[in-house]
């Protein structure tokens, strides 16, 4: 329990201290907060591994009166992934957000916003209360929008405003569903809702919440806000926005469809969700192919990569949940969430290094930079392996498990999406990789400290290691899963 609460309290305290303390104390206190929260997240994962899922009733009040928190395998795993990405972001931001480089405004705001975002993500990962999740999502939204706007450029302001528009619309849709479900059942707790007496309004409530969360997850066709927002933010902010923020709304979606109201998962609904995911894979890939800037390619690839995760709905949801292949498909999708997070953060941080080195992320300007900055080029290439789904990366494990589920359940069509998406990813990553590894250097880069260059490399290596050592995370992700799908492959 202490580990769970520490993951929420420590980043909040560090954020408050970073706001109140004078400028010279800001960076040390923020880095201290990052280190302690990282330790708390790992500690939480270890306690979940040894003791199983951890449940806390806040203030000693049981639901439906109070709010319950619960760290299961998935929540704790996402917490560790978030902690690793945040630690990497902090190490990169030490250089990029230095007052002399970024100016007093950005160097003031970045640290509290980052820490508040972290606290909100951790809060969403463990919350079991639909309204508390709404509050957590709103905190994520406001900090994320501010992080988009932080560069102060005109296109960043427009992108942030569009992002806020979509995110608030999504919040209201979600809130509408929450209102209906409390009005009908008198509880907001996910576990209590699972045991409710079903009423006709439930389908509407679930539909509204799902629609809102899809907007926030930027699933096709609600993805239009994502690429401009993620590419307009400074690189450390983009890394958080792309790797972490969509995972929060996606996790709530999974909790709703697999835990709170699994009996409403009709084949048509599940097919629609996965169909939109498949379209996102294709459409995001095609648009990534057309971009001329590194960060935009990476941002469009987020649209595509998030699409894969939605294949979990028909492969492991509804009637399929009790089938032998469900656990594999479910874990595959979770591997995709974790692997994509690590790899995408590595890519954005690498792009940040290029921007710091040559002042631009146009493919024509980053040509040949692998010669001058070999570690960064290597990091980008390693992260690409995960996005492509090549062995031995986490992306490979994810696609392998999803593919097995598709064949075992006889839903062959989804296998084509996995293969086609992989080919598209190869096509859209080919251009940046050939540019970075070209023989001639287009622009002579400024020197970049080794400590900074190593950051994306470590993240990219972690995304590969997750695939190499997949059996431990596989078992870990099963902790606290809903009972019906506990029987594995």
């Amino acid at each position, binding site marked *: 329990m202490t580990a769970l609460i520490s993951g929420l*309290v420590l980043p909040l305290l560090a954020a408050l201290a970073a706001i109140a303390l004078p400028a010279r104390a800001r960076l040390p206190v923020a880095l201290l907060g990052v280190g302690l929260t990282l330790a708390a997240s790992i500690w939480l994962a270890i306690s979940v591994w040894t003791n199983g899922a951890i449940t806390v009733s806040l*203030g000693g009040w049981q639901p439906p009166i109070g709010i319950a928190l619960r760290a299961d395998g998935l929540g704790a795993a996402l917490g560790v992934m978030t902690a690793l990405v945040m630690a990497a972001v902090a190490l990169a931001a030490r250089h990029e957000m230095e007052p002399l480089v970024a100016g007093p405004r950005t160097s003031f705001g970045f640290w509290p916003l980052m820490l508040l975002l972290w606290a909100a993500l951790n809060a969403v990962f463990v919350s079991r209360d639909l309204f508390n999740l709404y509050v957590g999502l709103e905190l994520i939204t406001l900090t994320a929008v501010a992080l988009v706007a932080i560069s102060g450029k005109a296109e960043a302001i427009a992108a942030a405003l569009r992002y806020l528009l979509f995110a608030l619309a999504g919040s209201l849709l979600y809130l509408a569903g929450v209102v209906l479900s409390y009005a009908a059942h008198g509880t907001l707790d996910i576990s209590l809702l699972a045991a409710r007496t079903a009423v006709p309004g439930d389908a509407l409530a679930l539909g509204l919440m799902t629609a809102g969360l899809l907007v926030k997850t930027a699933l096709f066709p609600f993805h239009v806000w994502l690429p401009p927002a993620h590419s307009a933010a400074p690189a450390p902010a983009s890394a958080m926005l792309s790797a972490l923020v969509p995972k929060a709304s996606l996790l709530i979606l999974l909790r709703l469809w697999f835990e709170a109201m699994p009996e409403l998962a009709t084949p048509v609904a599940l097919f629609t969700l996965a169909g939109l995911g498949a379209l996102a894979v294709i459409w995001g890939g095609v648009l990534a192919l057309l971009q001329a800037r590194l960060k935009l390619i990476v941002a469009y690839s987020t649209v595509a990569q998030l699409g894969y995760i939605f294949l979990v709905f028909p492969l492991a949801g509804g009637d399929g949940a009790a089938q032998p292949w469900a656990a594999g498909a479910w874990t595959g999708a979770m591997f995709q969430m974790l692997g994509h997070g690590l790899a995408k953060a590595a890519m954005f941080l690498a792009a940040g290094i290029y921007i710091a080195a040559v002042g631009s992320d146009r493919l024509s300007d980053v040509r040949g930079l692998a010669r001058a900055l070999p570690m960064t080029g290597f990091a980008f290439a390693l992260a690409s392996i995960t996005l492509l789904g090549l062995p031995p990366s986490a992306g490979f494990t994810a696609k392998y498990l999803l593919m097995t589920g598709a064949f075992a359940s006889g839903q062959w069509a989804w296998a084509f999406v996995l293969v086609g998406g992989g080919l598209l990813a190869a096509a859209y990553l080919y251009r940046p990789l050939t540019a970075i590894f070209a023989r001639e250097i287009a622009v002579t880069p400024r020197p970049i400290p080794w400590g900074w260059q190593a950051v994306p490399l470590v993240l990219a290596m972690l995304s590969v290691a997750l695939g190499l050592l997949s059996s431990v995370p596989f078992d870990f992700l099963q902790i606290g899963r809903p009972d019906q799908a506990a029987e594995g492959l």
Partner: protein
Amino acid sequence: MSLVLDIALCALILGVGLATVAGHGVFRAVIFFITYGLLLAIGWARLGAYDVALAEAAISAGLTGVLLLAAHGRLRRLSAAEEAPLRRNLPAALIATGVALALGWAWFALPDPAAPDLTAALPQSGVGNPVTAVLLNFRAWDTLLEAIILLAALIGLWMLARDRAWNEPLGLQYHARAGGVMASFGRVLPPIGLIFGVYLVWAGAETTGGAFQGGTVLAAVCLVSLMAGVLPAPRIAQTAWRAALVFGPGVFLLSGVAGAIFAQGFLALPPALAKPAIVTIEAALTLSIAVTLVLLVIGPPDDGGQDA
């Protein structure tokens, strides 16, 4: 007769809502929006939700209105307050009708009310006002995050300042004729508002009131003093202001941690100590909420210059 009253009130609310959406002119819409919040507060009074009525009157009708008025003024000076007239938009009308009908259907499909039974829990909560018990005790984690959200919005707002204006005072530099109506108003209102705001926080434990409502009233009088030029505009660099921002959430958070160490868990309040603990937390929160709201309304530092 009370049904006639409610129907008349709802008709007014709907009319004002329609005028806000459909009428031409952004300024007109802003004014309608202010009256909308006001009528809604009366609606909450009719529903018996007095704490909500207070929040609606203070926050939606009051602060949001001032925020929008100030924004309209700024946009007009940037020649961005004009808008194209509303054209007929059939898809939007269909979606909107669909949403309204779906919600209307959901109302009639609701099963019998199933509110959680609070009779055993309320006496343990330390306060007599059940809404305060929910906000500060049963669901304190929501309320803590809510205070943090206000703070996050303020930090986000400050990020919209231009770099060269960062060290300027926050917001516009208000001035008024010394001894004029505005300046006298700025001196007369604050003492009254101060007492009323403190009363709302104190009363909130047992009857209508609370930290957010009281904080809003305090913010309102503070804003009037600022606008009248009685108070100097704050700067981000001033540590006292930043400390005031984090004081309330900090006290709330640390009292939660104290609950984890000395009582049953995070945010737990032992029944014997619940009342003083809640009043302390509310007092600290009120101060921070008031300061945060003031700074949210006056906006980021502004040197008044134009972008190229």
